[in-house]
């Protein structure tokens, strides 16, 4: 029992020490808290991109920023409450699943400020800024670029799980390819998605890179040479396959993959940019400046909230076409869906 007593003694001492130093949150300045959706901070997708905005604010504006990971639905309310209790100046919530919890917290704490990524309230709430993105505008361009770059006449896309935010990418992509076909009299085929049936190719998760690799391989075997995976980290499995086999190229999503997954630069045709980091950074900045206002921010091609990175090896003609399409979308002369 000797050891046992020793351990108990250590524990008692420890608990005295820790109650003494518990609860301190260091640093001055503006306090920003971000609540992630499931998947966590390193999901290499929207949580990570949004946090990049917070990180930028920490570096450039000197704010005090941190995050809480949600591992389940019940955490949303709780994590937001945690930041409310800590009297955080701006609470950024990421993902449409946090819509209800954010709304409830905003209404209960009218003095707190909130920003939510990927969700728009109708009507808007005065102390919540919704940050949404017309991603199909960007994927429309991606589809156009893919159709203009394919050598086999087949391009492909696949997703993690068939849910609207994933499907939005794929719908725009298909529309872009069709538009290219119309304009250029080609017949480029899209594998892995069918807007009419609202069905396509999915791997059932956002985690398994191996599944991502395998489905990409299958699509390439069926003739596609450009693939756009919409599945967070699992999409990198597709990039890995292309890099290894050299028989295809991928289109990155959310961020510019030539930066975030630079090891695959050679096989990245382009990336669909969803500039959540910019939007989040701007929201933080507005709080610091005292200009924060609730409402809605819609990221579009027009305001660079979404965009398409440079297309590798694009001909001048294709680039010109892309510019024209972009202008058309901004003008409203081209409908993306």
């Amino acid at each position: 029992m000797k050891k046992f007593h020793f351990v108990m003694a250590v524990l008692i001492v420890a608990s005295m020490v820790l109650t003494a130093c518990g609860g301190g949150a260091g640093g001055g300045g503006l306090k920003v808290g971000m609540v992630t959706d499931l998947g966590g901070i390193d999901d290499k997708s929207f949580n990570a991109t949004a946090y990049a905005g917070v990180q930028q604010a920490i570096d450039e504006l000197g704010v005090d920023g941190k995050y809480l990971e949600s591992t389940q639905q019940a955490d949303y309310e709780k994590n937001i409450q945690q930041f409310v209790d800590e009297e955080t100046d701006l609470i950024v919530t990421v993902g449409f699943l946090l819509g209800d919890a954010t709304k409830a917290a905003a209404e209960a704490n009218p003095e707190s400020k909130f920003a939510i990524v990927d969700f728009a309230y109708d009507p808007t709430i005065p102390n919540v800024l919704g940050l949404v993105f017309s991603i199909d505008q960007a994927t429309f361009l991606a589809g156009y670029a893919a159709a203009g770059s394919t050598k086999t006449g087949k391009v492909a896309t696949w997703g993690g799980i068939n849910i609207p935010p994933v499907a939005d990418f794929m719908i725009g992509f298909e529309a872009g390819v069709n538009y290219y076909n119309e304009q250029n009299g080609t017949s480029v085929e899209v594998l892995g998605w069918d807007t009419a049936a609202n069905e396509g190719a999915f791997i059932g998760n956002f985690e398994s890179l191996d599944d991502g690799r395998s489905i990409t391989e299958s699509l390439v075997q069926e003739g596609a040479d450009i693939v756009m995976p919409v599945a967070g980290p699992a999409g990198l499995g597709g990039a890995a396959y292309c890099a290894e086999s050299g028989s295809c190229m991928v289109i990155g999503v959310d961020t510019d993959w030539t930066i975030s997954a630079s090891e695959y630069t050679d096989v990245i045709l382009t990336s669909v940019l969803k500039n959540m980091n910019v939007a989040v950074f701007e929201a933080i900045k507005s709080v610091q400046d005292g200009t924060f206002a609730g409402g809605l921010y819609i990221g579009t091609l027009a305001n660079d909230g979404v965009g398409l990175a440079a297309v590798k090896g694009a001909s001048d003609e294709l680039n010109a076409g892309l510019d024209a399409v972009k202008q058309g979308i901004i003008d409203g002369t081209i409908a993306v869906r």
Partner: protein
Amino acid sequence: MSNTTAPEKKEKKRSAIWSELLVPVLAVVSGLILGAIVIVVSGENPFRAYGALFTGSFGSPVRLIDGLQIYSATGETRQLLRAFYPLTESLVTATPYIFAGLSVALGFRCGLFNIGAEGQFFIGALSAAFVGYSIQGLPMIIHLPLAILGGALGGALWGMIPGYLKARFGAHEVVNTIMMNWIAFRLSDWLLDGPMKGPGFRPVTPTIFETAELPRFFPDPLRFNLGFFLALLAAYLVYWFLFKTTLGFEIRSVGANPDAAKYAGMNIVRNFVLVMVLAGGLAGLAGSAQVLGVDYWVGQGFSAGYGFDAIAIALLGKSHPLGVVLAALLFGFLRSGATNMQSMASIPIDIISIIQGMVIVFIAAPEIIRWFYRIRAVKKDETVLTRGWGS
């Protein structure tokens, strides 16, 4: 022949309870110590981390005193409620753990290893939500019980399938319940973006009607609700069922020695199915309690692995309902406090899983604990929890 006097028996019982408790307590302590080592290795201060864990799960005494002072001075309850928030939140987190832990424990008692509590939890939650949002205009007194039962039924159905396959064909329930989990996830993916999709673009169910909500006892943001007491009631019922009824006697007999149970005229097949139905029902109730008491709607990330944590809880609680309640409370406090730990000490919450894995190992191997802490072994027959592929 048996001439043990009553007080003697009581005395024996007391020391037996103490020795029963010693190993689990030491296992948890050891898990926390190893967790502290991991925290140190990852470059953080374990005292700070566990301090945050403590205040996150019980609340800070300073706040409580402040709250009381404000309340006595002004009658304003807001601060007081805030101070109680962490504690109630821990109990809210513990609620599904109690149900799910009972589910796994009941399986263990019958010699079945229900790893499928996670899938049953999911299906239960979806069923409860369905009853909750699809029926309008019922009074609460009917709608709420109906929704709770709906969840239990959904889970029971999901548990019955592997139970039946085990009983009828001898297919091992461990693999089958795991497969049923995956099928449940895929099925819910489809349901949430298909038949059960609510209004709007999001792949989530509609919000349930207020008549199906488990009543909360305090104003927002305190989410403490009737579910916790239902869980305690369930624990008592499981205890009564296991130890005070003929059905429970059968189940324990089948678990302890299936051959003898068969010899004694018990129907093994029926008991396997019955237990898996009940275990599934309990896991389904966990889903009911969560959706009707806390979340009100179901989306993809509805569970954080309650079904898997439940295994640790059942083991920690020695498959006894009282033990399960205590273990579930412990896990509730750990998980709930982890949020504060994450925020205050920036420790990833995965650390809790690590501690949990360690605790299971220590509980399953009490000899390690006894050896390390030099405790003499209490000579008694260990219950066999699981068996190989065959039976």
